[in-house]
């Protein structure tokens, strides 16, 4: 097996892996920014804002990422907006990641013990000050392990960008396979590369979780 697999193929796979990392970063930054806003909206004192953000989360979490990809690439093209695979994949990932990170971070904001809010209120801090100076610094600490854990999902899910022709790792594997037809070998290599990208992140997340559970603050 693999007689025809040469160094050029591996270089091509390397480029694909770089785009996988690139798209993951785009999704993390874009999805993180929007997700942060979603999380803030979810704990807003305004009912309509909470409801709107909640609806967004429910709709996106009920839809497969693959369908979002198809919708933003083929769907938008069909009604006259031609966008590049990079834009379609980046936008889809951002929309998708925002819903999940928004929900994770809402949980983290709500996990900050209630007396912290009350104490901040008692110090006559404004709502913004309470959020920025008291709640968020604690929420960020709670949020770090699950956010790093979700990064693994982001990296894996970028493989779905292959369906809109974005040449990341999975797509570059398919392209090589189309010329060599060594599916077992090539997809095994792809799987190993994904594993090499994801496993360190998984380990980091678990280490963070362990250390967070060991020094649990004696609040509440």
């Amino acid at each position, binding site marked *: 097996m693999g007689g025809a697999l040469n160094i050029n193929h591996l270089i091509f796979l390397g480029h694909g892996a770089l785009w996988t990392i690139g798209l993951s970063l785009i999704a993390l930054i874009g999805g993180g920014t929007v997700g942060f806003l979603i999380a803030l909206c979810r704990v807003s004192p305004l009912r309509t804002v909470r409801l709107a953000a909640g609806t967004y989360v*429910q*709709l996106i*979490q*009920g*839809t*497969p*990422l*693959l*369908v*979002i990809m*198809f*919708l933003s690439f*083929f*769907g*938008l*093209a*069909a*009604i*006259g907006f031609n966008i590049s695979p990079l834009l379609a994949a980046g936008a889809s990932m951002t929309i998708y990641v925002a819903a999940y990170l928004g929900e994770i971070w809402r949980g983290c904001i709500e996990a900050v013990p209630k007396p912290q809010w009350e104490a901040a209120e008692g110090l006559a801090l404004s709502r913004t000050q309470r959020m920025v100076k008291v709640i968020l610094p604690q929420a960020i600490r709670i949020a770090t392990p699950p956010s790093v854990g979700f990064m*693994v999902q982001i990296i*894996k*899910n970028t*493989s*779905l960008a*292959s*369906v809109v022709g974005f040449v990341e790792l*999975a797509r570059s*594997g*398919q392209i090589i396979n189309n010329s060599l037809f060594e*599916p*077992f070998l090539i*997809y*095994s290599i*792809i*799987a190993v590369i*994904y*594993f090499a990208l*994801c*496993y360190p992140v*998984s380990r980091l997340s678990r280490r963070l979780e362990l250390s967070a559970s060991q020094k649990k603050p004696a609040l509440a």
Partner: protein
Amino acid sequence: MGIELDFSVVLERWHSLLDGAVLTLELAAIAVVLGGIIGALGAIGRRGSNALIARICGIYVEGIRNTPLLVQIFLVYFGLASLGLKFSAFTVAAVALTINVGAYTTEIMRAGFDSIHKGQIEAAEGLALSKAQIYWHVVLWPAVERVYPALTSQFVLLMLASSVTSQISAEELTAVANYIQSETYRSFETYIVVALIYIALSLVMRLGFWVIGQLLFPRRRRLGTPL
């Protein structure tokens, strides 16, 4: 620029969409049941005294959880084919999804098992229950009860992830959608409709799991340690 949306050509193919939705639920049901069994066994294996089995279960969990489902599906599909084993796309999809969700279920179940207080097991030993009885009555069911919300979210995610099997042409909902949009050139409308169907399916699944939860765990326990 004027955008004209025409949902009628998509909606008049409702019977294909319905078939696809049913197949999606079938795939999810198979993977949930078989994956649930794998998960329970995997979690027992991971916590067991046999180091080799524990290690194999660990490799399975980490290997699956750190690689994309799409690649796993391709590996199973083409891997079995290269061994000369020809299966339908549906069978391969079911196998790949089962292997995938089994790994996540293993982790969730393990967390559930770990949450069972040691004193409970010692008490059961004191009552002279056999090892199997202890696992069934004292460890498994209370653990499932505790991790039930996490398990069911994972199963809904699995149903959504089954859309990926459209890439090997299993005739589920997303594959039906791809077919309809290539026939009608109405991609935007098609995928909007399909997204709404998926949202409806996840609501149906959540409702179903809630009802099952109410039936399985009638006494609402007050748990001292939230997971």
